[in-house]
């Protein structure tokens, strides 16, 4: 029987949303599989999360060690290798922690690795068929992975439907004694909080958000004029911050700000999942992009295939004439 272990990331005593998404993914792998939550950390926060997980998972493994007070992936990896069976299927999130943990975990467990899975077709023999994306979401692919000696699979947060918790009636097994040597050559020092910028984009009902399509730093003025006409604020996608054209505090996405506007104007933004992950509250999304195949058109409410450098000034002018 397939044994699936779901690594539960948490902070401040609360599990991340992906904890409720794993059961849907596990069911798609093999509806008959046993699914066990694995919670690693220390102290009261760990106990709180482990107990909360018994409402969702029948079996919960707890690994308590002071070395994991902060989830240093190098240390968590060692603990998981010691505690989990070698042929386990391990689920982790494809986020900044999962990307730190999972590739090395697959090597140390000598198992297959499949990253950033967005859907699962199921098992045939020893082969698991999965769906992922490439090229920034421009194309999807089917991949098969040989799970006969176990597998580490990272799933994209938000890609699988969350389950309703509350009725699993599970129990917690303490495996702290099996964690083994947790020394590491990487030491966590501190988390440096994001700097507060000149404008708080999270407070604005309307965002004019720019991406690579803006092409040149001086063109940002064109977006600012549109934002002024709409009484909106200019935000952006990652490449604009990487180019140092706008402050990090203006960036929408999982590695930037999470925004909940009423209207989101995606101007020359292709629409990577990391960017979309920062847009919550189901806003009305208008996408303008000269590439008709841009992934943003799959999630936008209204799409316009135009060059933003020509479209934005025309729209600004029309709004100012209202």
């Amino acid at each position: 029987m397939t044994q699936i272990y779901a690594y539960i990331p948490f902070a401040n005593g609360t599990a991340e949303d992906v904890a409720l998404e794993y059961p849907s993914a596990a069911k798609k792998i093999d509806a008959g599989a046993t699914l066990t939550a694995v919670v690693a950390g220390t102290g009261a926060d760990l106990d709180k999360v482990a107990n909360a997980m018994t409402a969702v998972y029948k079996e919960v493994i707890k690994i308590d060690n002071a070395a994991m007070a902060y989830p240093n992936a190098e240390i968590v990896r060692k603990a998981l290798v010691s505690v989990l069976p070698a042929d386990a299927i391990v689920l982790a999130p494809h986020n900044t922690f999962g990307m730190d943990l999972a590739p090395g975990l697959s090597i140390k467990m000598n198992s297959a690795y499949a990253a950033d899975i967005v859907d699962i077709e199921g098992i045939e023999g020893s082969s698991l068929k999965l769906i992922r994306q490439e090229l920034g979401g421009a194309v999807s692919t089917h991949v098969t992975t040989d799970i006969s000696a176990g597998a580490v699979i990272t799933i994209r947060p938000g890609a699988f439907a969350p389950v309703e918790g509350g009725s699993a009636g599970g129990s917690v097994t303490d495996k702290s004694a099996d964690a083994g040597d947790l020394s590491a050559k990487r030491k966590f020092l501190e988390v440096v909080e994001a700097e507060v910028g000149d404008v708080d984009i999270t407070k604005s009902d309307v965002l004019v958000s720019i991406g690579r399509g803006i092409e040149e730093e001086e063109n940002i003025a064109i977006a600012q004029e549109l934002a002024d006409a709409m009484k909106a604020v200019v935000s952006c996608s990652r490449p604009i911050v990487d180019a140092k054209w706008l402050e990090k505090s203006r960036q929408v996405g999982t590695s930037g700000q999470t925004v909940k506007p009423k209207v989101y104007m995606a101007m020359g933004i292709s629409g990577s999942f990391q960017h979309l992950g920062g847009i919550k509250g189901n806003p009305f999304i208008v996408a303008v992009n000269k590439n008709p195949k841009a992934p943003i058109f799959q999630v936008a409410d209204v799409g316009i295939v135009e060059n933003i450098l020509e479209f934005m000034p025309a729209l600004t002018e029309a709004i100012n004439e209202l």
Partner: protein
Amino acid sequence: MEILVCVKRVPDTAENEFELNSAGNDLDRDDLVYSVNEWDNYAVEEAIQIVDKIGGNVTVVTVGDDESEEVLRREMAMGANNGILLTDDAFEGSDGKGIATILKAEVEKGKYDLIMTGAQADEGAGQVGGMLAAMLDLPYASLVNKIEPGEGKIKVGREIEGGNQEMNEIELPCVVSIQTGINEPRYVGIRGIRKVASVEIPEKGASDLGVDASAVGEAGAKTKRVDYFVPDLGDGAEMLEGSTDEIITALIEKLKAKGGL
């Protein structure tokens, strides 16, 4: 500091509209524009800046075919001192573990203090750096957006959710994957490329590296791509069409209705 940067030649997402071939199972690759993986440019720039500051050498390495040589030359034009091309028919079809296995063999032939990869490449898995570190039993940090060199160790910042940065101290030698935005990669002009056009770039195959050909390539891959496809995502956006004036009139009505104006 001796630094090895692992780079990859990839289809350029900024320069291509990706379409499927007529069979519908692969990209139409006839007219694709390739370039060096964006993340790798940041890694090479970071390596050059470290060496400029404290001395050492930057070597760039890639696993690929003859055409991958151009990305090595490009990174050497940026300022990398050496290039190495790992190429063999047996490497074709490698999964992430296969690529890491090939790179590990090359790493063990040199003496590197710091090994860098881009945080991810065209396939978006972000896997090779972490695998390589685990195979070499070296410490690893992913998504690095700051490096401060020190004695026998470095201080690295990792990009984590919400724009926050996780600071770590990591012993050398180590492997790090570099996130975009860590620096501003220098521009490479035609003249820079010409300067390194005749520099010898050694090529190494499976037997040179002592890599078991059955452990890499298609034969050794546990995870394999079956096909490419464009998913049916339902309705998607309502596309506004017509003249720009017509589109703007329609859009303004919608924005008024939704609270945008």
